[in-house]
């Protein structure tokens, strides 16, 4: 294949990957604490044998939109939403993970756990235990959990120097090698959850432009094939 078609192909290849990202954003339209992701592309220069360069396109990374998702009331006292920056620390068998999905429960041993059953951690990285029969659970703005029997613990609200460098793993959990910094003036809202920050209008517009881009690339490849075919036909007629 000649270089011009290869360039168009590189664009089609990336458009397909962009569709994957849009599909994942739209699939997670109702996922608690989900952050939209977008692919970033960069120009990639191909060195031709004659010393000139041709421009192609390459994927460089996935950018995460860390903007606030809408906070909606659920009425469940164990649902918490973070208003502003920060993540809540969760203990997993593989080490601490960080999440903005604050749908928590109390398990049969009284520990505060996520919907996957992982314990929610306090600032000293220990699970939070709510005393048996501890009714009327309140979570204050700074994450302090209080029941009728007194203070049961505090949620660990942390932030990171580079939130975009956090790696997403399944279940709304993030992992990182960065050192977490406690958030001093966090705002935790009880009885509410942070919705997904995916904006359907933007995703659908992107989807449409991907569709157009794909058909342009296809037309280009078709045109190139025609051009070569015509050239070959004419060359064949040269006496």
């Amino acid at each position, binding site marked *: 294949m000649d270089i011009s078609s290869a360039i168009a192909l590189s664009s089609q290849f990336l458009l*397909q990957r962009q569709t994957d990202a849009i*599909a994942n954003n*739209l699939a997670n*339209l109702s996922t608690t604490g*989900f952050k939209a992701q977008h692919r970033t592309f960069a120009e990639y220069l191909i060195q031709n044998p004659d010393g000139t360069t041709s421009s192609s396109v390459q994927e460089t990374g996935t950018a995460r939109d860390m903007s606030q998702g809408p906070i909606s009331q659920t009425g469940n006292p164990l649902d918490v939403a973070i208003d502003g920056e920060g993540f809540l620390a969760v203990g997993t068998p593989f080490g601490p993970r960080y999440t903005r999905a604050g749908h928590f429960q*109390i398990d049969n041993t009284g520990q505060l756990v996520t919907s996957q059953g992982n314990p929610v951690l306090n600032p000293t990285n220990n699970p939070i235990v709510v005393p048996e029969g501890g009714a009327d659970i309140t979570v204050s703005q700074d994450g302090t959990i209080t029941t009728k029997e007194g203070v049961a613990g505090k949620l660990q609200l942390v932030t990171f120097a580079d939130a975009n460098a956090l790696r997403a793993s399944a279940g709304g959990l993030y992992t990182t090698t960065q050192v977490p910094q406690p958030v001093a003036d966090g705002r935790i809202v009880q009885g509410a959850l942070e919705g997904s920050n995916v904006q359907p209008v933007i995703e659908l517009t992107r*989807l449409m432009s991907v*569709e157009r881009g794909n058909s342009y690339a296809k037309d280009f490849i078709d045109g190139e094939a025609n051009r070569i075919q015509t050239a070959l036909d004419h060359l064949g007629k040269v006496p």
Partner: protein
Amino acid sequence: MRSLNIAATGMLAQQLNVEVISNNIANLNTTAFKRQRAEFQDLLYENQRAAGASSSDNGTIVPVGVDVGTGVKAAAVYRITQQGTLLNTNNPLDIAISGRGYFQVQMPDGTTAYSRAGSFQLSPTGEIVTADGYVVQPGITLPNNTVAVTVNASGQVLAEIAGQTSQQTIGQFQLATFPNEAGLAQLGGNLLKQTEASGTPITGNPGSTGFGTIQQGFLETSNVNVVSEITNLITAQRAYEMNSKVIQVSDDMAASLTQIR
């Protein structure tokens, strides 16, 4: 074409969402029904280029990696155990719990189920039973010539018997609470069952620490909020449509690829 499968997981999730919402709306008038909510989580990420990997011999690193999401799954459908409004029925055997706790109901197979629906009746022998005829534990039997029954806030059952001047205490309602109420399994018929996740029941008299109080002549209505359910329904429907649009576009793109010469 991952996008086809990703959009399919999105459509499945929204379908479940609509099912949960429709069940909430269907149970709008069910006594003591607790509304449910579907909780979703993102699926595993395919890490194609790791952030922090070195990008040159001089030690520069990749600032942002390439993480490809693979869709969504349902993590939980959980009950929101918010108190429902108490509705006055004036029926002496309609008993509502205001606060925490469940009535204990003896199932025909001998196990105990838990319920907040206090629309009780009498059995042929005068025992207090649920609308399905299951005995409420601990069993309370009204004497034959009872004129009126009073249940006070702490669950004491007092009967006024014909020919006697003072009321007689004939029983005591008991409530059960659980460390993790959301972990109770639903049996249908307003009944819940203890599971490993719920923890073991703690029983006590109404009004004591950690337990709600009893309101005679009232029923707890469902805690479904119609307005928010309808709003959720519209959102779910639109999200479903958007995911199907992704499938359509992915299909168009695949079709155009097969036409390239």
